[in-house]
């Protein structure tokens, strides 16, 4: 990575880290796993940064790496910490937020991925389907199921949820 590439990569990490962390946390519902996921994704794109830039939307590229990586992690039980120096302490939600995250953590990973793509990354149903390699119908049904489960577990004010438009 030459100096210009490195500067561009560093700027990307500094600016995009908050949303990438939030997306990773939504995918995993676990602080440690989220940190691992972000770091592994950044390592992967860092080794081919010029090509990632050429894609025109590096953030989308990184999110896709995270989704793909997460799918492979679903098949493995344990994760390995990749970077010892984490940028921040683990997030520990409290109060109502804790209840919501607790309920999110109990969802099947694929349903959580749909919610992460739709409500954190703001993807359309079509974009979420493409990212997950499934049909739009699956995205709709998984999203509806996830919201229904959250409603059942959390009650009011998570009421009368319909699937996202």
């Amino acid at each position, binding site marked *: 990575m030459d100096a210009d590439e490195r500067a561009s990569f560093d700027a990307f*990490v500094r600016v995009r880290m908050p949303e990438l962390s939030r997306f990773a946390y939504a995918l995993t519902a676990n602080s440690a796993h989220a940190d691992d996921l972000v770091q592994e994704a950044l390592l992967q794109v860092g*080794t081919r940064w010029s090509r990632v830039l050429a894609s025109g939307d590096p953030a989308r590229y990184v999110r896709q790496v995270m989704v793909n990586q997460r799918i492979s992690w679903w098949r493995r039980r344990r994760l390995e910490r990749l970077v010892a120096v984490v940028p921040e302490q683990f997030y520990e939600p409290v109060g109502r937020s804790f209840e919501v995250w607790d309920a999110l953590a109990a969802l099947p990973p694929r349903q959580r991925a749909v919610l992460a793509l739709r409500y954190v990354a703001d993807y359309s149903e079509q974009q979420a389907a493409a990212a997950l390699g499934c049909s739009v119908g699956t995205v709709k049904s998984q999203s509806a199921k996830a919201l229904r489960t959250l409603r059942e577990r959390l009650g009011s004010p998570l009421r009368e949820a319909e699937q996202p438009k």
Partner: protein
Amino acid sequence: MNDAERELVRAFEDVPVVAVQGEFLEELHRRIDRRRRSRRAVAVLTATATTTAVVAVLSTYSLAGHSTEPVPIRMGSAQPAPWVNQPVEVDNSAEYPACGAAEMQGRAEPVDAGLGVHDHRLLLWFTNRGSQPCTLSGYASDISVELTGGGRVSGTTVTADPHVHTAPPANLKPGERAAIVFSYSDECDTLPPMPSGESNATATAFRVPAPGGGEVTIAFPAATDTPCNGFRHTAFTYSAFTTPAAATSELNGLVITISAPRAATSGDTVTYTVTLHNPSDRDVIFNRCPIYTQYMGAGYDQPTDATVGQYRLNCDETNGIKAGDSATFAMQIEVPAGQGSARLEWGLDDSIAVAALPGPITLNAPETRPSS
């Protein structure tokens, strides 16, 4: 956006903004550079095939789908790797009621375990199709294979009388699945000739008792090679119910041999060795340093007292085992109180790799010291 969606977005937005420190970026670049260097090394080595050993290590990573940098296997010396006192806590508790057959859907899947031409493995998958979570753990009481003509053949668990359960329980929410590893051999040359009329006795189905009651029937995969045209003349073994990760662990192919003194004194700490042999044609690399469980039970078959502990292997000395090679580790365990004989077992956690020392260890009472 409705209430549910709004609350969800609020929860997502509650995740705090992470400030990126320079130290983090520096570390990230160090790792990126290492990856790039190792990729260049892979390209050069693969193109020139200078050393088969190194290429074998790298191809192992490729086969296993690991994303971390390849590392050469660091074999220990001829001496056993010294024991290191690194105890760990592992939570292997069952979280839900035992799964019954009525809520389980079974499927058999052949796996390429790289075990050699005569040894085969199948994964028996059990998916929770019920509406409630349930747990599958421990050994099924008696798995049998049904043959054409109605006969059945029974197998044995991977350890005859296991006290060490290294396979973690599978706590299954609806839709999740667990597995049993089913292993068999087809070394038919060493078996007696097949009596006439039995040559077509092929396997048709597995019958697996569920811990929560009932029996799951799983069709035998049609395309699977069966030994000597059936199971009638051969034995098979099966693992405990466990998680998909443990059922597919690379450690499962390792053959464990325990070597220990045949007599020990209660209260003493004895040293013994464990040799891990990799009979496969693939290197096994400890990407995470494995945890093992050791067990010594006084009373042998009916334990009255036992010492059980979980530790990490000495991965500073040995971080993997090359194809066809072995690694030996020194172990230490406190001899439990009791009389008669003791049983020693050892297994690798998060896998189905377990073994017992063949035969008992004679227990000696501690010497009585004269009072002053």
